[in-house]
């Protein structure tokens, strides 16, 4: 299916948020995710079913003022 991941359109085979992170080789307890502007907790990722056109945000800690 086609997803928008961190602002970039991507074709992926994953159908859950957990499998998407694995497919894109993301790892780390410091990752935080949102689907269609709603946060999805790490514990909810396995059950988070993705659908065509979803907008995924994968974020992590960064410098800030």
């Amino acid at each position, binding site marked *: 299916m086609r997803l928008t991941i*961190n*602002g970039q359109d991507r074709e992926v085979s994953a159908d859950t948020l957990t499998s998407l992170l694995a497919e*894109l*080789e*993301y*790892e*780390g307890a*410091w*990752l*935080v995710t*949102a689907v269609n*502007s*709603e*946060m999805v*907790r*790490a514990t909810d990722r396995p059950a988070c079913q993705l659908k065509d056109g979803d907008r995924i*945000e*994968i*974020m*992590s*800690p*960064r*410098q*800030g*003022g």
Partner: protein
Amino acid sequence: MLTLYGKDLASRLLLGTSQYPSPATMSEAIRQSGASVVTVSLRREMSGGRTGGDFWGLIQSLALDVLPNTAGCHSVKEAVTTAQMAREVFGTNWIKLEVIGEHDTLQPDVFGLVEAARILSEDGFAVFPYTTTDLVVAERLLEAGCRVLMPWCAPIGSAMGPVDLFALRAIRGHFPETPLIIDAGLGRPSHAAQVMEMGFDAVLLNTAVAKAGDPVGMARAFGKAVEAGREAFVSGMLEPRDMAAPSTPVIGQAVFT
């Protein structure tokens, strides 16, 4: 001792982690400043988690309190979602709430700020709102659940220092019991000392240290300035007067003719 949302803090300086020439310089500057709180943000992870992981590991090694921000958010929805994500990943309910309303000055959208502050306070967040010196907005933020206010003294990154002393005196005077942290606009250690002498409870800064010629030295200087300003405030300063007053005793002076 400064207490914010029930947490006692050893330092009255809160320091940002952005714009340093290197991670090592950032770490040393934070250490030398004496700051006990550092600000951080969330951004898109494009390297599989490595970028965020490296930074987060460095911050954790400092063993300080972390204040995540919602920098760059221009709407209530963006700020609230970012705050929720920050709580998830940083493991703190503290949030430096920024809702930017104007591009050139980075002035907060105070209407959105109050709305977001209410939503987040009701959701259990300890909100540190980046606001102006407007007294009515300050009152609304307190009504929304904020227990700390962070008025600017000049636009973010401007280094102008306290440009409106009347407004700063007014907000300090109107909210004597509320912790007030000057956030944004400080350029020099003397600026920090000045607002601390005015009775503000703490300062939050980033650019003035990170972009200094020697960030570590400047961090030390700001740390000293904040301590000096606070100690001066609690020690009771002389008010200016128009007439001279001799400091050397007049009695006992010899008369030579």
